[in-house]
C-alpha cells in the first residue's frame, strides 16, 4: 500500500477531522480553565489584600497613626502575618514608612498594578518589565488624610498561569499526536480491509468466481459488508452455474436428437422414397423436432423456476382436490398399462404455491412411476397434512432406485437407465426438485420396500 493512499482514505480524512475538532475543544477547555484559574487567583489575592488593609485601618482607628506606622514596620521587618508591600504617607505626602522604592509614585485610591523597577534591567518601551514582579496594590485614604497602600506580589499568579499554559501545551501536543497516530492506525487497518475486498473483487472480475472476501469475525459494519458481499457472490455464482449448466445441457442433450433428425432428413433426400414413405418420414421428422422443442422448453422452464421469478403467482392451493383430480386423470392411463393408481387423502390440505407447478410436480412423479413400473404395479398418491407441513408422496412397488443413484436422478438429464431405452429426457425429477425448492419445500426419495417412495414436503404457511 502506498503512503499516499493513507491520505486518500475516507477514514484518514475522518481521523484528521476528528483530531481538528479535538484540538479545538482542547483549546476551548484551556481558555476556560486559564480564565477561571486566573480570575480565582486574582480574587484570592485581592481578598487577602483587602483583608489586610481592613485590619490596618482598624489599627489606625483604635490606636492612631503612630501605632499603625510601627505595626507596618514590624510587618515589613518580620514579613509575618503580612502580605509583602506597604507604603504609608502622611497627609502632606511625606512617606512615613514603606518598602516600595520611592521612585514609584503613590497611585490613586483603589486597585492598581505596580511594576517594580529592577536593578540593572532595562525596561521595555511600555515602561513595564515583562519579567519584573508586579504588585497588586490597594490604596486608601485614612480619615486624617494620610494614605495607606498595601500590596502583594502577583508572582504566584504569574507562575500558576505559566504552569497552566505549560500543562496544556504538553497535554495538547501529546493529545494531538495521539489523535493523529490513532487516525493513521485506524485508517491503515481500514484500508487494509478495503484493499482485501478490492483484491477479491478484482480477482472475481478476472474470472475467478470462487474468490471470496475475507471476513474478520468482528461483526462490525465492514465485516457485515464482507459477509453480505460473499452471500451476493454465492448467489451470483449459483446463477452463473445455472446458466452454464443450461448451456451445457442444451449443447449435449439436444445434439443427439438433432443429429438423429438430420440423418432422417438425409435419408429422405437420398433414397427415392414413394410419396407415402416421404410423408411418413416428414411426419417423423416433425415428431423429432417437437421432441427437441419439448426438451428445450423443459430446460427453460426449469431454469426459470430456479431463478425464482414465479413467486408472485403463489396462492393457497387445495391439494386435496389437486391430488384427487390427478389420480382420476391418470387411473385410466395406469389401467391401460396394466397398473393400478389410487389416491389416499388424509384430511384437508392446502399449500401456498403456484397451482400450475404443484400440478406439474405431482403429474411428473406419477408419470415417472407409471413409466418405470412394470405391469401389475400398484401406485399410490398419498397426501398427509401434518402440523407444520404437508406431505405429498407417490409410492410404487416397482423396481425402485438404488440408494446411491437417488441424489443423481434429481439432476438434469440424469438417467439411471444408461441405454436410454425408455422415452424421456431425464428432466421430470429435475423440474420437481426445482419447483419444490421454489416452494421452500424438499423432495426425498426413499425405499418403499419394494419400490420407490418420492415425498414432497411443503412447509405450512405461518
Amino acid at each position, binding site marked *: 500500500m502506498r503512503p499516499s493512499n493513507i491520505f486518500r482514505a475516507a477514514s484518514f480524512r475522518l481521523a484528521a477531522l476528528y483530531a481538528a475538532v479535538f484540538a479545538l475543544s482542547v483549546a476551548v477547555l484551556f481558555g476556560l480553565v486559564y480564565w477561571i484559574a486566573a480570575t480565582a487567583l486574582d480574587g484570592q489575592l485581592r481578598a487577602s489584600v483587602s483583608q489586610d488593609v481592613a485590619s490596618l485601618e482598624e489599627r489606625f482607628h483604635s490606636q492612631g497613626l503612630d501605632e499603625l506606622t510601627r505595626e507596618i514596620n514590624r510587618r515589613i521587618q518580620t514579613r509575618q502575618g503580612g502580605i509583602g508591600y506597604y507604603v504609608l504617607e502622611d497627609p502632606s505626602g511625606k512617606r512615613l514608612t514603606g518598602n516600595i522604592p520611592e521612585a514609584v509614585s503613590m497611585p490613586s485610591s483603589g486597585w492598581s498594578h505596580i511594576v517594580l523597577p529592577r536593578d540593572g534591567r532595562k525596561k521595555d518601551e511600555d515602561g513595564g518589565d515583562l519579567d519584573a514582579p508586579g504588585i497588586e496594590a490597594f490604596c486608601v485614604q485614612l480619615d486624617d488624610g494620610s494614605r495607606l497602600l498595601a500590596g502583594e506580589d502577583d508572582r504566584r499568579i504569574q507562575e500558576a498561569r505559566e504552569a497552566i499554559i505549560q500543562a496544556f501545551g504538553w497535554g495538547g501536543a501529546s493529545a494531538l499526536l495521539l489523535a493523529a497516530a490513532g487516525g493513521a492506525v485506524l485508517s491503515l487497518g481500514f484500508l487494509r480491509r478495503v484493499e482485501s475486498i478490492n483484491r477479491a473483487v478484482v480477482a472475481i472480475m478476472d474470472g475467478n468466481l470462487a474468490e471470496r472476501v475475507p471476513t474478520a469475525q468482528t461483526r462490525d459494519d465492514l465485516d457485515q459488508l464482507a459477509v453480505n458481499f460473499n452471500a451476493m457472490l454465492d448467489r451470483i455464482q449459483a446463477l452463473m452455474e445455472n446458466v452454464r449448466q443450461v448451456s451445457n445441457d442444451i449443447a449435449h442433450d439436444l445434439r443427439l436428437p438433432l443429429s438423429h433428425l438430420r440423418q432422417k432428413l438425409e435419408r429422405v433426400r437420398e433414397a427415392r422414397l414413394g410419396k407415402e414413405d416421404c410423408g411418413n418420414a416428414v*411426419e417423423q421428422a*416433425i415428431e423429432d423436432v417437437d421432441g427437441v*422443442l*419439448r426438451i*428445450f*422448453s423443459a430446460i*427453460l*422452464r426449469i431454469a*426459470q*423456476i430456479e431463478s425464482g*421469478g*414465479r413467486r408472485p*403467482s403463489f396462492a393457497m392451493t387445495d391439494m386435496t382436490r389437486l391430488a384427487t*383430480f390427478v389420480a*382420476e*386423470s*391418470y387411473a*385410466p*392411463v395406469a389401467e*391401460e398399462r396394466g397398473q393400478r393408481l389410487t389416491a389416499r387423502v388424509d384430511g384437508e390440505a392446502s399449500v401456498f404455491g403456484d*397451482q*400450475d407447478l404443484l*400440478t*406439474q410436480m405431482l*403429474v*411428473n412423479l406419477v*408419470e415417472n412411476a*407409471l*413409466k418405470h413400473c412394470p405391469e401389475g404395479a400398484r401406485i399410490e398418491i398419498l397426501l398427509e397434512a401434518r402440523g407444520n407441513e404437508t406431505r405429498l408422496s407417490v409410492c410404487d412397488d416397482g423396481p425402485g432406485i438404488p440408494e446411491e443413484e437417488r441424489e443423481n436422478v434429481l439432476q438434469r438429464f440424469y438417467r439411471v437407465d444408461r441405454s436410454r431405452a425408455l*422415452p*424421456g429426457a431425464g428432466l*421430470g425429477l429435475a423440474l420437481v426438485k426445482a419447483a419444490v425448492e421454489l416452494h421452500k419445500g424438499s423432495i426425498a426419495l426413499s425405499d418403499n420396500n419394494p419400490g420407490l417412495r418420492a415425498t414432497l414436503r411443503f412447509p405450512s404457511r405461518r
Partner: protein
Amino acid sequence: MKLLIIEDDAENAAYIAQGFRERGHVVDVASDGRQGLFMAGAGEFDVMIVDRMLPGMDGLGVVKTLRSAGVKTPVIFLTTMSGIDDRVEGLEAGGDDYLVKPFAFSELLARVNALARRPPILKEKTTLQVADLTMDLLARTVERSGRRIELQPLEFKILEYLMCNAGRVVTRTMLLEKVWDFHFDPQTNVVETNISRLRAKLNRDLGVDLIKTVRGAGYCLHAPE
C-alpha cells in the same frame, strides 16, 4: 372469416397468413404494434392474432389499448416458450387465448376457429345436444338414444367441452388447458386414454362413433353425416 395478424417476424406472419388464406379466409398483416393498433381500430375482424413481442408497442399494450377503447374482437396471443408467466399476463391484458411459439398450424387453426365462432354470450344453456347425444348440465346426466350413460366427473367435463365445440376440431393441448387446466406437456397419453374411455362408454352397443379423431390435429365431436 376476417383475421388480423400483428407479427413482426415476416416469415412467421407469411406462414400463418398463407395457411388461413388457403382455407378461404381474409387476412390482414401488421408488422408492428402501432400499425396493428391502427388497423384493428379501422376494420372489423373476427379474430386477431397478436405476437407478444413487437417493436414500437408490444402486444400486451396493443390489446390493452384496444380493450379500453371497447374493441371486443377475440385475441389470441403468440408467446415465446421462455415466458412461463406470459399466459396470466396475456389473459389479464384482455387476451382470450394464447399459443406458445413454435406451434403446429393445425393448433392455431383450431384455436382461432374456437374463438371466432364463440357465441356472443348466450343465455345459460341447460342442455346440450349433438345428434342422439343429450347432456343435461343441471342434473349432470348424459343420455344417448334415450339410454342413460354413467360418466365420471372428468369424463363429463371432457364431453361437455367437446359438445360446446361440436363440429370444431379440439386439439390435445386445448383439452389439456381447458379440461385439465394443465399448462405443460404431460409425457404420457393422458388425453388419449381418457378420450378413448369416454368414447367406449358413449359407443357401447352402437356402431356410430360421434368423437372423430382428426389425424395430426385433435378430436371433433359431430353428428354423423
